[in-house]
């Protein structure tokens, strides 16, 4: 089966639907359905950054997880390099996964505290059997240096690092496999503004060097303005507006987008 996909689109999702059932009513005996994703379609152009913005509960993290097949979805398809990921299983899915990586929000919860940084970053190479042990180590060390850590850091544990450094470890772990698409789920929202600027610049440099395509999930519209090429605005599981950054920020069409933009703090001064 072949899928219609335009030339430079690297990842495309069509009509994704994901429902959660929720206990409701008296004593939680009833149940009701919450549509976390309601007919969501996106396409990510190669080498570009697509930002997904929305408030908590809008479905943006669910979308990220469904794209990477970390959550099963109810219906729809996710097409990467001509294959529908939802139809892949086992080794075939694992093989594709090395091209699709994720950087998580919480740099404290997403790194195994019992593993050394070198093991965390090198684990993907090991699992995917990429190169000999020596090559893997070489690659892991190169990646650590690239994200601004040192070779000595490979022997340390995550708790020995600050929040910003941990996020660098998370980025190294995702990028060591030479992925094509990286989903960043609120990668800077747990960080101080000075560290946030460092990480944003690092992500941008790496994108240019490695030709990465980013899906950037964020609730911070100021950050999004700096990193995104295109934007999707989500509200209650639906896409309410999408388009190029300039267009959305300068002339938002939907009332919800206008509300979001006018709520950005600090528009009065500066």
């Amino acid at each position: 089966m072949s899928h219609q996909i335009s030339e430079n689109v690297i990842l495309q999702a069509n009509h994704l639907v994901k429902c959660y059932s929720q206990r409701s009513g008296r004593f939680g005996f009833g149940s009701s359905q919450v549509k976390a994703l309601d007919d969501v379609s996106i396409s990510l152009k190669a080498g570009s950054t697509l930002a997904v913005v929305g408030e908590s509960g809008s479905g943006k993290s669910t979308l990220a997880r469904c794209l990477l097949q970390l959550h099963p979805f109810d219906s729809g398809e996710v097409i990467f390099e001509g294959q529908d990921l939802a139809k892949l299983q086992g080794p075939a899915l694992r093989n594709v996964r090395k091209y699709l990586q994720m950087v998580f929000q919480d740099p404290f919860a997403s790194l195994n505290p019992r593993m050394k940084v070198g093991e965390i970053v090198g684990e993907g190479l090991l699992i995917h059997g990429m190169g000999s042990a020596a090559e893997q180590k070489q690659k892991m060390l190169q990646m650590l240096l690239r994200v601004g850590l040192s070779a000595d850091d490979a022997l340390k544990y995550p708790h020995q690092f600050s929040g910003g450094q941990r996020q660098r470890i998370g980025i190294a772990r995702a990028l060591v496999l030479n992925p094509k698409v990286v989903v960043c789920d609120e990668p800077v929202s747990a960080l101080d503004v000075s560290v946030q600027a460092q990480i944003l610049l690092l992500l941008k440099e790496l994108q240019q060097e490695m030709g990465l395509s980013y899906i950037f999930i964020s609730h911070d519209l100021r950050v999004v303005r700096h990193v995104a090429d295109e934007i999707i605005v989500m509200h209650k599981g639906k896409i309410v507006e999408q388009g190029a950054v300039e267009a959305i920020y300068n002339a938002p069409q939907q009332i919800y987008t206008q509300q979001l933009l006018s709520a950005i703090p600090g528009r009065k001064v500066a």
Partner: protein
Amino acid sequence: MSEILKIANLSITPHNAPNRLLVNNVSLTLSAGKTTCIVGESGSGKSLTALSIMNLLSKQLQASGNIVFQGQDITKLDEKSLQSIRGAKIGMIFQEPMTSLNPVLTVGFQIGESLTAHLGLKGQALKDKIAALLTQVGIPAERANSYPDELSGGQRQRVMIAMSIACEPALLIADEPTTALDVTVQAQILQLLDALKTRMNMAMLFITHDFGVVADIADDVIVMFRGEIVETGSKKEVLTKPKHPYTKALLACVPDAEGKKQLKPIDYAWLKDGLKDDKATA
């Protein structure tokens, strides 16, 4: 313009490491009807400064210096006299509304606690006052019977605000009250706090790390870095004409909504030299 709180030479150190200054010689003055924002990165000492006002510091920390509230040095008061000030004359709002509310008590009961303790309100008078407070912060009065988990994050923060203003305090301390909230809710809460401050002529000490929030709510700004105040001034002075190299560097990290600015991370090594130069010229 009346002075509500004056902190002079406040220093905070851990008991077991008296040379480690977590807060170093901080002095500031808060006036009625004015909002003063303390901005800084994590670890800059902004929350410790706020907590020390109410003597809520951890037992492992030791504070020195004077804190004069309405003409009275409150560092010399015993716990009982402090209790009559806490919640009555000084209100406080914390960052995480879920962890600061008791999950097994209705929000009405929790708002009522300080009214009974400080003002001796009971019965119908208490109920009326709780209803009035809830209405004032934009929550329907019948929500008094709800439990915290039945409310959204923004509503919980409104309940926290109702609790903190229940006894009409002269000073309201807000420690990152909107950090955990969505932007649209944040905008509403900031508006509410600003309106209450004006109506009740409170002094407000607002702690945040977000310069956007500062721009929206502050009259005066204090910038803290590694336990020290590096710059103070009016909002306009600090945001548009920062003097200190750290303030300049911190402002250069803040992404703007127009996306025109080139982000520049702080170079701490350079900053250290910059600080030295600064002291040399001063």
